[in-house]
């Protein structure tokens, strides 16, 4: 098995190492190559703009001969690169895989499908392309001898030209790492009312998350708070969903939470089917009480 890891990070390198065989990491600067020393058998440097999926795809195609598998992270640009190269290689592209096995020329992977209501076990012939679901492959890649080489003359005048790049505003929110998340949904009537959730999160020592409409439609919170299929995938020890109905696309982001608790005034809200503890109550009545009681508890 020879795996080409693009946009390499620890998780990808570990995932690749579980397949055995040789690992090549494709990077886009000398500096990146130095940082990776000892973590891949070969380190290939292609000096191109990693933000350009076109250019990265060209570099991957150039570097691919001799490999069986391309491994990518589950980012939007990596997904674009994956689609481009998979078609050119005539290969399958298994996205967001949860597990991975190679057996006699075939790669086997599991992934969530159908709005995260089912798990698919998919088999594809090598060569293939895979992208790894975030946070699923945790371990240390073994230390190896590295050789560094350059990918010469990647013929690229990218067809898509980047005119400007604007960083999204980043707060202190790191939902992926939060141990406790108090998450808000459309059960909140006004933006100002979210203050309650922030207070509750504060007394619990947690962060505030939200459902899609709060960030995307109402824009009451920046997108970094957005949890779900198209938002953040989180794995706190406590996820407290307040005024969230629990649509599958939201649940998709919280499957790995240890305990899910929910507050909703509708006893038939689907969130209760996906929660360990559900409270049927008006959030406006119970959240202030919770803030009060928990802050007293913590003060002890």
């Amino acid at each position, binding site marked *: 098995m020879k795996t080409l890891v693009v946009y390499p990070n620890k998780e990808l390198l570990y995932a690749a190492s579980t397949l055995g065989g040789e690992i090549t990491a494709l990077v886009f600067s000398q500096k990146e190559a130095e940082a990776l020393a000892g973590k891949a058998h070969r380190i290939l440097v292609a000096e191109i703009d990693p933000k350009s999926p076109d250019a990265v795809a060209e570099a991957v195609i150039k570097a691919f001969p001799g490999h069986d598998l391309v491994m990518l992270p589950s980012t939007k*640009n990596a997904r674009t690169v994956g689609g481009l190269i998979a078609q050119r290689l005539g290969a399958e592209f298994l996205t967001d895989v949860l597990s991975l096995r190679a057996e006699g020329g075939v790669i086997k992977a599991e992934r969530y499908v159908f709005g995260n209501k089912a798990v698919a076990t998919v088999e594809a012939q090598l060569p293939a392309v895979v992208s790894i679901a975030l946070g699923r492959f945790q371990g240390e890649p073994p230390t190896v001898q590295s050789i560094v080489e350059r990918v010469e003359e990647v013929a690229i005048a990218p067809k898509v030209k980047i005119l400007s*790049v604007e960083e999204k505003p980043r707060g202190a929110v790191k939902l992926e790492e939060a141990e406790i998340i108090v998450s808000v949904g459309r059960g909140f009537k006004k933006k100002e009312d979210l203050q309650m959730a922030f207070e509750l999160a504060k007394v619990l020592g947690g962060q505030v998350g939200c459902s899609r409409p709060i960030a995307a439609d109402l824009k009451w919170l920046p997108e970094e708070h957005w949890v779900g299929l198209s938002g953040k995938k989180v794995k706190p020890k406590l996820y407290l969903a307040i005024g969230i109905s629990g649509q599958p696309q939201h649940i998709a982001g919280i499957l790995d939470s240890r305990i899910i608790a929910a507050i909703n005034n509708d006893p038939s809200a689907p969130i209760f089917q996906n929660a360990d503890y559900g409270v049927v109550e008006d959030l406006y009545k119970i959240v202030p009480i919770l803030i009060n009681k928990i802050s007293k508890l913590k003060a002890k």
Partner: protein
Amino acid sequence: MKVAVLVKTALDTGQLRVRDTVVIEETPFKISDIDRNAIEEAVKLKGQDKAYGVTVVKWGPLQKKIQEAENVLREALAMGLDEVYLVVDEKLLNASHTATAKAIAAVIKKVGADIVLAGEATVDNFTGQIPARVAAELGWPVVTYVRELKIEGGRVVAKRDLEDHVEVVEAPLPVVVSVTREINQPRIPTLLAIRAAMKKPINKLTLADLGIDITPKISASYRPLVIQRKKIIIKDGTPEEKAEKLIQYLRQEGVI
């Protein structure tokens, strides 16, 4: 501007039929949600020209699913597409993504387009790879995750919405563009539009019509995801009592 829209007749995951396994044959189709945004954008862009939809039926049984796909596509026509191409062939059931993209690209080559629009991903599989694959197959540039789109002098200028940043990019036509749900508010067709859609053409094509052959299939099995949660519901008592109970439980679990 001649526009092609990739309209996936996707499995309606809200109505997933589950027994011991997922019963795909019995799960109905619907338009993949984000494709509605692509249709909306196409209808806005097309001007005097035409916008057509392309779908590949990927699930069987074929006869039943063709009927369902037609019904679903009527909705896309009611939103303002002028015609649709429904690619159906036994060989496309459970086809690999490579094969699906080949079939889609073959329709686009046949009918022509200045721009191909698609949703960022489909609601059943959510792999988001088809737009890039179709672009690769056509040899066109691809611009993914677009939340704002303009056409200016033979080029698209688009705002791409990525994880940590927003990019403005430009690319020459013809081009493949995938859009996010934020790009627009898809229209709800009027009764009049729904009636008019009954008269618009649904063209059925086989691989032979497209002059291509496809073999690779993908092997996949599906099992329902059973979520093991305790489902303890606190519904009796005053808000005060309920809060107390919840706190008790959460303390027992050691999470607060």
